């Protein structure tokens, strides 16, 4: 009996990376505690999030037990399916709030762009792995096309935020695969020059967001409102915060989206600078551990996938906190592992599963 139990425990935890799991679990706990406060003590919301968490953990475990080589094999079909679904959305998607992002598949509505978040890095990593050792500029050009197609499809939904995040994940693969610094710097310079030309092509709401980011007081009751209220929440929290469930900004309804994209403002108001620094340290622990896993990965595919997943974790965390604290314009990026929302939680835990798989399946051969 005891033997059975210990073998079961062994099977359960064999592929689970302790540090990664501890850091993620701690952040998820912060998320649930804050969610309870942000939803005005709604147990229903916390339960719903906990249910998603259960599913996410199961998926993480399954992915952790799949060897990276097997993941590489599904990369191309997954990418093609994701692109096909994006095309289908463009042709027959359901319009919600003026954006065509959803595909109605009878039982539920499904957002193909979420699938692309996983599919694109897998696809690119698989491609670079396949031509490992003889990667030339043509390969980077083709990789760029593989990135641009889904990014364009998502951008015209329109969902600029997600498009930019997916473009970023693609860029991370290229960067880690060794894209020349000259090209990187050149692209940045080009971006700086092109920005004024892109301006007239933006949608009104996008321009508005940028303008109100530059000066939130332009529209204190409109688009700048979120940003200003979030800053007030954080700033009034002070060093130690107002205490759990005591955030006035949060509970008097001043904060919009306060259980999703702006949950960090609730956290920062109630737990103050101390809480914020602890949360940042937890993210750094998670990302740091993920980087160690990446560095130890044994194949190019594993390295690229693990590295990109790591950098995306960083990107989500940074962009969300920067947006809430007024360092960046408001974009729809949730705080990873904290914001309410089942889909995001599941994708993130699948990402953790990939990292754990890479760690568990590394070949312990001396270089």
């Amino acid at each position: 009996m005891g033997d059975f139990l210990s073998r079961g425990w062994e099977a359960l935890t064999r592929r689970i990376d302790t540090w990664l799991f501890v850091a993620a679990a701690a952040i998820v706990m912060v998320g649930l505690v804050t969610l309870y406060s942000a939803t005005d003590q709604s147990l229903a919301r916390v339960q719903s999030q906990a249910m998603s968490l259960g599913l996410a953990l199961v998926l993480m475990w399954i992915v952790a037990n799949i060897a990276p080589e097997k993941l590489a094999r599904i990369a191309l079909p997954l990418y093609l399916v994701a692109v096909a679904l994006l095309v289908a959305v463009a042709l027959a998607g359901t319009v919600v709030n003026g954006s065509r992002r959803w595909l109605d598949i009878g039982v539920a509505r499904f957002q193909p762009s979420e699938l692309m978040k996983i599919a694109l890095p897998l696809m690119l990593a698989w491609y670079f792995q396949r031509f490992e050792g003889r990667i030339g500029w043509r390969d980077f050009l083709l990789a760029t096309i593989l990135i641009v197609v889904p990014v364009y499809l998502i951008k015209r939904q329109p969902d600029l935020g997600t498009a930019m995040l997916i473009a970023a994940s693609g860029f991370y693969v290229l960067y880690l695969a060794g894209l020349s610094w000259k090209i990187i710097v050149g692209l940045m310079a080009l971006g700086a020059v092109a920005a004024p030309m892109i301006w007239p092509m933006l949608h009104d709401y996008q321009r508005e967001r940028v303008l109100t980011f530059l000066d939130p007081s332009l529209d204190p009751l409109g688009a700048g409102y979120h940003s200003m209220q979030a800053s007030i929440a954080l700033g009034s929290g002070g060093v130690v915060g107002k205490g759990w469930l005591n955030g006035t900004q949060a509970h008097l309804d001043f904060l919009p989206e306060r259980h999703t994209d702006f949950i960090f403002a609730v956290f920062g108001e109630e737990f103050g600078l101390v809480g914020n620094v602890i949360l940042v340290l937890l993210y750094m622990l998670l990302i740091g551990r993920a980087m160690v896993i990446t560095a130890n990965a044994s194949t190019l595919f594993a390295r690229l996938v693990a590295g990109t997943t790591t950098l995306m974790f960083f990107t989500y965390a940074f962009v969300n906190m920067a947006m809430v604290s007024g360092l960046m314009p408001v974009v729809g990026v949730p705080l990873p592992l904290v914001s309410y929302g089942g889909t995001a939680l599941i994708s993130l835990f699948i990402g953790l599963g990939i990292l754990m798989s890479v760690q568990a399946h590394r070949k312990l051969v001396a270089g």
Partner: protein
Amino acid sequence: MPRRFLFASRRRFGGERGLGSPELRNRERELFLFKRRLTVAAALAVVAFGGLVARFVDLQVIQHSHYQTLAETNRIAIVPVAPNRGVITDRNGVVLAQSYSAYTLEITPSRVQNLDATIDALADLVDVRDRDRRRLRKLMEESKNFESLPLRTKLTDDEVARFAANRYRFPGVEINARLFRQYPYGETASHVVGYIGRINDRDVERIADWNETANYKGTDTIGKVGIELAYERQLHGVTGNEEVEVDASGRAVRTLSRRPPTSGQNIALTIDIALQQAAEEAFGDRRGALVAIDPSNGEVLAMVSKPGYDPNLFVDGIDSASWQELNESPDKPLLNRPLRGAYPPGSTIKPFLALAALESGKRTAAQTIFDPGFYQIPGQSHRFRDDKPGGHGTVDMQKSIIQYCDTYYYMLGAETDIDDTARFLGQFGFGARTGIDIDGELSGILPSRKWKRDRFGAQNGKWYLGDSVSAGIGQGYNAFTPMQLAHAIAAIANDGVAYRPHLLHAIGGSVEAAAAIVDEQPTRIPLKPQNIATIKAALVGVNREGTSRQAFVGATYTSAGKTGTAQVFSLKGEKYQEKNVNERLRDHAWFIAYAPADKPRIALAVLVENGGFGAAAAAPIARRVLDYYLTGAKAAPASDIESTSGDDESD
């Protein structure tokens, strides 16, 4: 960036392909490059997180007290509390306009993501009609996006309860208790009382000019027409405020302190609503105007404009269909006829012209002329026809007024300089606003040489003798409002002492305060007593034995009056046959009167549009109003009265 790194990558991607370095070494090199890149990324991440922490320190330590203050003010909002608008009553305290509180369902469009879907969902909870949707659309066009706009007004208790239970589903939608204006008498006196409507951009400027912007913070309606407009500042009151804890959607969570508003002042009008009703009933379905004035002080006792409209339609924003119907109706229900309808005075001008002749010495009361039935300007062939074929024979002033003799006035007109006439008539207020205390009054047209030159230019603006002859019988260019004629006949009734007509009787319960607002200093028109006595005697004769005798058969008081017929359409010398003329081209019927003749308490002017002869259409209405005011008697229905004078063709 280290040069080695750049070099390495270039070589690897550019030239080294296929060079047969050992597999293992190549891998090692690749791994080394990868780790470098990862290290760079890790360093960037640390820097980025460091930047975040710096921002947190900035917000939460350095700027903490600033944001602390903002958070405090965020919670505590000063909410204006709109004052109760003053009540409008008639002179006897009968309520004509009042405010009451009711629940409205309001939407702030900028806070609602999908307006149509939201309204559809709301329609499941409360009754939302197409009219409500249309009105909301119209309001959205007229207002700023962040304003809270009413979707439904006057919710029932059930509807309020149903919405309250589902409120969480509708961000940007809320229920507010608002004050509504109600006009219990509807169409009756609608042109006097006027109505309120939503504050628009022009109103905002007006409020700013008064320096009252702060005082209107909680107010969303303002007087638009009539008394509601004229005494807006007295009726409005002083806005109070409440210190409340609110949430982001402006919903008050609880009240911390309160400074109550001061209600607007109540206004009592000089109107007697019972008299007003009697007068409006006397009109029946006919279009026209009536103004009744107390000659001894200028108080307007009744002021009718038919047809009227229901001011209640405007209170919470009129929908476009109703507006269109009112605005495009050929009957022009929105036209305030007593003040904005300018009609040729016809024969009602004759007593004033006769008085002018007496005062200037051009005629004496006993002086006679011979009337062959027409008048010709010497040396011209055109005949200015009298209404009576064959003429009235020998006519003195008395007979000219009582018997309706045009020829007398053609001759007088030809002999009198038009500028002298204009100067004299100007003293009675013709051609100028009477100064009544509601807006929109027209000044009418009192023709003179200067007027015609200004109007038609030097070329065509020459004054001809023929113009004077036409003006002599009140046709031609003359056009006056019913208010002007009522004011003028009141001045005659009061022996030349003219008071400014006004509608304000008392304000805040004080007649003295009202008198201070309405300047009641009269103007004294210099007239010889015997001349005015001559004219008054003639006017009494008109009602006793003249054109309007039928209308005044059996009156228990003596009255004075003058009928008039204003041409709408010139028949070029043909005999006017009422039944042959399109209804809208028929003459307008006038009647001016005062009573009792010896000590006048009421003077009035009646105009019936396209009514035909004044004696037939207008005089019976005047009779009913005078009867009601002087004896309290409700007269017989309009049809009976009409038949008593129906056979009298002369005017």
